[in-house]
């Protein structure tokens, strides 16, 4: 069971990392300031989660 959860956590963190990269990409790509700000706010949560802080 421990191995299962470890694998699952690695996959989860990989997904969080990939989504974080997509958010950064989108923040650069979008021309709307509001979308950039929303993306930046969302990014904070993803980064805190990625480092298992919150």
């Amino acid at each position, binding site marked *: 069971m421990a191995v299962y959860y470890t694998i*699952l956590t690695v996959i*989860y963190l990989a997904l969080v990392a990939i989504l974080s990269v997509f958010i950064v990409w989108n923040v*650069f790509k979008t*021309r709307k300031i509001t979308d*950039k700000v929303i993306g930046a706010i969302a*990014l904070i949560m993803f980064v*805190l989660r990625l480092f298992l*802080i*919150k």
Partner: protein
Amino acid sequence: MKLTKKTNLIITSCILVVAIVVGIVTGIEFYDFSNYDTYFYTGNVDEIQKYSQYSPLLKGTVGDSNIYVMHGSENTVALIKAEDAQTYASVESLNNHDGAIVVAVSDSDQMTAASATVTKPVNGLADANQVINAVKSGSATVGILRYEDAKKAVEEDETLAIAQAEVEKVPSLLILGGTHANEPSGQITATLFLENADVQRGTLYITTETNRSAYTHSQPQEASPFYYELETASGSTRTFKFGSRATNTNQQWPNPDIYTHSPSGQQLSSSEVRNINRAYPGSVDGNYTERVAYAITQCVLQNDISMVIDLHEASPEYITINAIVYHQDAGYLAASAQLAMELYVETAADGTFINGVEIKTDASPTELHGLTHRELGDFTNAYVFLAESSNASQGKLRGKFTSDLIITGEDKFYEWADQLGLLYAAPVHINERVARHTITVTSIVDAFNNSGTTRLGENVGQLVINNVPSYVEIYDNGVGYYLHDVE
């Protein structure tokens, strides 16, 4: 607004820099909170056990919490040479040790009972020093004396030890504080006992962070403060954490769609999988919360603990509040404690007349599994109780969530709700909540002492705990008055 490539790059970079700064600042705050160790004074404690002694997979993890143990000064114990510790590790080996010369303190109240458990008692020795010297010199293999004297001897001479083998059966109590890290009066009451109790007879076990993992994060989407402070008698402050109801997802993840409790098979909502008070009796190799629950269950079983009191808080709009929930075998103790609390009459220093401490008693539902009052009652021989007080910060009607709200319980929306009669109990100051829990514990102990009989019908005598402040003393002086300054 149409952005050029260069402008876009500059604006985006600025926004991301701000996001990174906010991320770092909040990250540091969360990290510091997660790793902050709450101070507990342990000057009165005889022994500190770890959960991992009972649940090995917890070793080295954040949830490997402390169990503070305080032995009664008048408990009768066996003093031996440290090298003989293995020989006297069990009652059986103490009883059957051939050729053991046992000396006894003649003025010990427990001498007769103690002497009866050993092979060759030699009575009539005058004082503890003679016993200690007899063991030291080797003229006696085992010395029977009071815990207070034995402890002093062991502290002064490291070649001596107190035998693990039980000489005298005494009652014991486990106080569980901090089961839910967002219910502060449970933890503060456990801390009050930890830092003040003087156990004369029996054994007191205390946990102040029952689910320690829950103290490493805050309740999601509640915007709760991380800390609150209580002022001590000297005017300095003690800082306590306000955590979450559930185990941190860093220790246990993911939540299943439906939580199936083991071993009952009862199905609960997924979030309850990280609630320790739905995880009892626990499992040695189950999920993280089950392992923590298993440590508690094993602690009760292996130490044959007589009583367990689990201290909680509930929101004022919740029906089970200002209440004692009891396992069915503990009904008469709960009723006796209720009577004592309702008859409590005192006048506080401010002139307030305390005309009884109103308390409800509810029997633990037999089909609701995972809770202390159900599973510890079913799987151990302890009388088990759970106590609830009224916590505005836990409720859903509250306004702004501040550390003042945690302490004072004052909130205009709750005042309004109270005026409209929508609450089961008005929220009150933490002093009153802790006072209520304290009198609940002492009343249950008093009820037990009326018979001194365990659930198995064994007469173990009284559990005597001194120096615990009364309801009116906590009400008058505040709970901080009874907490030690940080050393």
